[in-house]
C-alpha cells in the first residue's frame, strides 16, 4: 500500500476528508496531531473498547487506533468452531462503524517500533505521535521454552489455535480428517495464560466432535498445572456426563519438547504420539510491549498501576488486556473489556488534570461443554491497597451445567462483539 492510499484509508475510516491529511502530512509523521491525542495499539477486546470509551467520555481527545488486520477474529467462541457448531465468520468484526460513530481514526498497519522518549509510534507508513499511549496487543508465545518448536513450521502440523483465524480452521480440519479411533493430544501450559478455562472448553468441544463422529477416538490431555485451572469440578462433571472414558487427563505433565515430523510431544518422562496434536504454547505479552520497554522483571507480562493501567516502568504508556498483570483478574476478553473502560475513564481524568476514579471491574467467562450446555465463572473486582482483588462473598461458578447458561452465553458474545464494533 502506498502512502496516499494509506492516508485515504485512515481518513475514510474516521470520516475525515482525505485531502486535509495529505496537505498536513509532514515527512515521516503520517497523522499530525491536532490536539490532545491518545494512540491505541491493538483493535481487539481491549483496544476497541478503550478507544470508544475515551471518545465517549471526552470527545475533545483525539484517538488513533492502530491495528494490523482489517477484520478481527474473536478467540471467544472459536472453540465452538473447532467443535463444529459455529461458523468462524460469526466471530469476525470490522471497524468501520466504530470509527464512524465515535470519530476514531483507525490506521491499518503494523506497529514496528515505539519511541517512548519522543512519544512516537512507528508503523510501516511512518510515525504517529501521542500524548498517552495505550497498548492492548494481546499475547505472543514463548516458543523457546519448547525444544524442537519451529515458530513457522510446527503450527502447520500442530496448530495452537490460541489466536483465532486460520489456526482455528486448521485444527478443525485436522479433526474432521482424522480417522475414527485416532488419538488427539492437547497440552496446556503453566498459568498464567490467555483464558484459563479455554483449554478445557476446547477439550470439551473436541470431545463433542469425536463423540458424534468418531466415537472410538480418545483425547490425551497433558496439563502442566497440578489440576484443571478453572471451573475444575464443573468440567469434570461435564466430561463424566457426556464423554465418559474418552478423555485421559494427566495433571502435572508439562510438555517440554515437540517433534512435528514424528507428531509427538515429550514431557521429559514420556513421549506421546497423536494423530492430531494441539500444543498450546506458554505465553507472554505481545511484542509491542517489549518495543515500549514496559515488560516487567518476569520478562513476560507488564506491571501497571492498578487504578490507571499506566505502566509501572514507563510514564504515559498504559497496558491493558492479556499483556498486563491485573492482580486477581484472569486474562480474558471480558477482563480486557472491563480494564479498557477503567483505563479510558482514568486516562481522560489524567489528561484533564483530575484525580483517577477508583476502579470497578467485572469478569464473566462462559464455557461450552457441549454445543448447547455451558458453565460460567464470575467475579467483581476492586482495588484495595494498590492491588486488584475479587470482592469477597460474591461471584463464583454456576451451580451446574445448563442450556440456560448457553443461551445467555450466546447473547454475551453478541453483545460484547457489538460493543467492540459499533
Amino acid at each position, binding site marked *: 500500500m502506498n502512502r496516499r492510499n494509506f492516508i485515504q484509508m485512515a481518513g475514510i475510516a474516521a*470520516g475525515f476528508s482525505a485531502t486535509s491529511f495529505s496537505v498536513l502530512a509532514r515527512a515521516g509523521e503520517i497523522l499530525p496531531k491536532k490536539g490532545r491525542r491518545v494512540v491505541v495499539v491493538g483493535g481487539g477486546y481491549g483496544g476497541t473498547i478503550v478507544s470508544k470509551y475515551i471518545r465517549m467520555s471526552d*470527545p*475533545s481527545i483525539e484517538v488513533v487506533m492502530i491495528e494490523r488486520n482489517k477484520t478481527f477474529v474473536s478467540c471467544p467462541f472459536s472453540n465452538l468452531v473447532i467443535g463444529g457448531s459455529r461458523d468462524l465468520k460469526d466471530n469476525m468484526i470490522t471497524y468501520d462503524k466504530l470509527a464512524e460513530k*465515535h470519530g476514531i481514526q483507525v490506521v491499518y498497519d503494523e506497529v514496528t517500533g515505539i519511541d517512548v522518549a519522543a512519544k512516537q509510534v512507528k508503523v510501516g507508513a511512518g510515525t504517529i505521535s501521542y500524548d498517552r499511549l495505550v497498548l492492548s496487543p494481546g499475547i505472543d508465545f514463548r516458543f523457546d521454552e519448547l525444544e524442537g518448536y519451529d515458530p513457522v513450521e510446527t503450527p502447520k502440523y500442530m496448530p495452537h489455535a490460541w489466536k483465532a483465524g486460520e489456526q482455528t480452521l486448521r485444527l478443525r480440519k485436522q479433526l474432521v480428517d482424522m480417522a475414527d479411533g485416532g488419538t488427539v493430544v492437547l497440552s496446556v501450559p503453566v498459568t498464567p495464560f490467555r483464558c484459563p478455562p479455554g483449554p478445557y472448553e476446547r477439550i470439551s468441544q473436541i470431545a463433542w466432535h469425536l463423540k458424534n463422529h468418531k466415537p472410538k477416538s480418545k483425547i490425551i490431555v497433558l496439563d502442566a498445572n497440578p489440576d484443571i485451572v478453572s471451573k475444575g469440578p464443573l468440567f469434570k462433571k461435564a466430561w463424566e456426563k457426556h464423554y465418559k472414558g474418552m478423555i485421559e487427563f494427566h495433571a502435572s505433565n508439562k510438555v517440554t519438547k515437540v517433534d512435528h515430523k514424528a507428531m509427538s510431544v515429550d514431557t521429559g518422562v514420556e513421549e506421546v504420539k497423536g494423530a492430531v496434536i494441539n500444543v498450546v504454547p506458554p505465553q507472554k505479552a505481545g511484542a509491542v510491549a517489549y518495543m515500549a520497554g514496559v515488560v516487567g522483571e518476569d520478562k513476560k507480562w507488564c506491571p501497571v498501576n492498578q487504578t490507571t493501567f499506566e505502566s509501572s516502568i514507563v510514564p504515559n504508556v498504559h497496558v491493558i488486556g492479556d499483556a498486563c498483570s491485573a492482580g486477581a483478574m484472569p486474562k480474558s476478553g*471480558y477482563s480486557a473489556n472491563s480494564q479498557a473502560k477503567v483505563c479510558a475513564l482514568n486516562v481522560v481524568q489524567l489528561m484533564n488534570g483530575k484525580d483517577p476514579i477508583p476502579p470497578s471491574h467485572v469478569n464473566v467467562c462462559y464455557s461450552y461443554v457441549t454445543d448447547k450446555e455451558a458453565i460460567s465463572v464470575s467475579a467483581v473486582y476492586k482495588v484495595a491497597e494498590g492491588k486488584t482483588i475479587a470482592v469477597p462473598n460474591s461471584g463464583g461458578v454456576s451451580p451446574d451445567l445448563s442450556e440456560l*447458561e448457553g443461551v*445467555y452465553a450466546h447473547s454475551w458474545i453478541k*453483545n460484547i462483539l*457489538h*460493543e467492540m464494533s459499533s
Partner: protein
Amino acid sequence: MKPMGIAVIIGGCFMIQAPVWAESPSQAAMLSNTCAGCHGTNGSSAGPSMPTIAGMPETYLLETMKKFKSGERPSSIMGRLAKAYSDEEIKMMVDFFAKHPFGREKQEVDAAKVAIGKQIHNQRCKKCHMDEGRDSEDSGILAGQWKQYLQISMSDFRSGKRKMPEKMAEKVDGEGKLTPEEVEAVIHFYSSQQ
C-alpha cells in the same frame, strides 16, 4: 490555537455525523460500564436473550437488584454479581441506567401473534404495563424488550421459579388462565413495539 479550539472542531465534526452520548467520567459510569459487556453499551442490549436495562424506571431497577442480591429473584448470573455491590453503589448504577434511553431494535415477530397479543394485553396487562408496556414504575419495561428474554421471564413465572406479583398472577393464571400460545402471542406483541 488553544487545544480547546481544536477540540471543538474535531468534536463538532463528529457530532454532526452521529451523535454519541458523551458522559464525563464519574463513579457511576465506572460501576455501570462493566455491566455493558453483557447488557450492551449504556444498557441497550444487542439481544437476543440478554435484557435491555437502559431507561427502566428507577424503582423497578432498584427493587430488582435488591431481589437479585437477596436471592428472592432467581437468576443464572445476576445474584452472583449483585452481591458484590453496596446499596449506594447499586443506587448509582440504577440512576445511570435509568437515564439512558431504552434502545429498541427490530425483532422477528409473527404479525398474527402480535394481533392476538395486543388483545390480551388490552384485556389483562395494560393496567400495570401501561402504554403498550413502555410505562410503569414497578414492573419494568416490556415494550421492545428481547423476545427470548421475555420468554424466559414468563416461563420462570409460570413454573413458580420466579415469584409472580399476586395481582399479575390473577391475570395470567387466574380465571381464563392463559394458554402457552396466548403467552407467546403477548410476548410477540411486546417485542414488536418500536
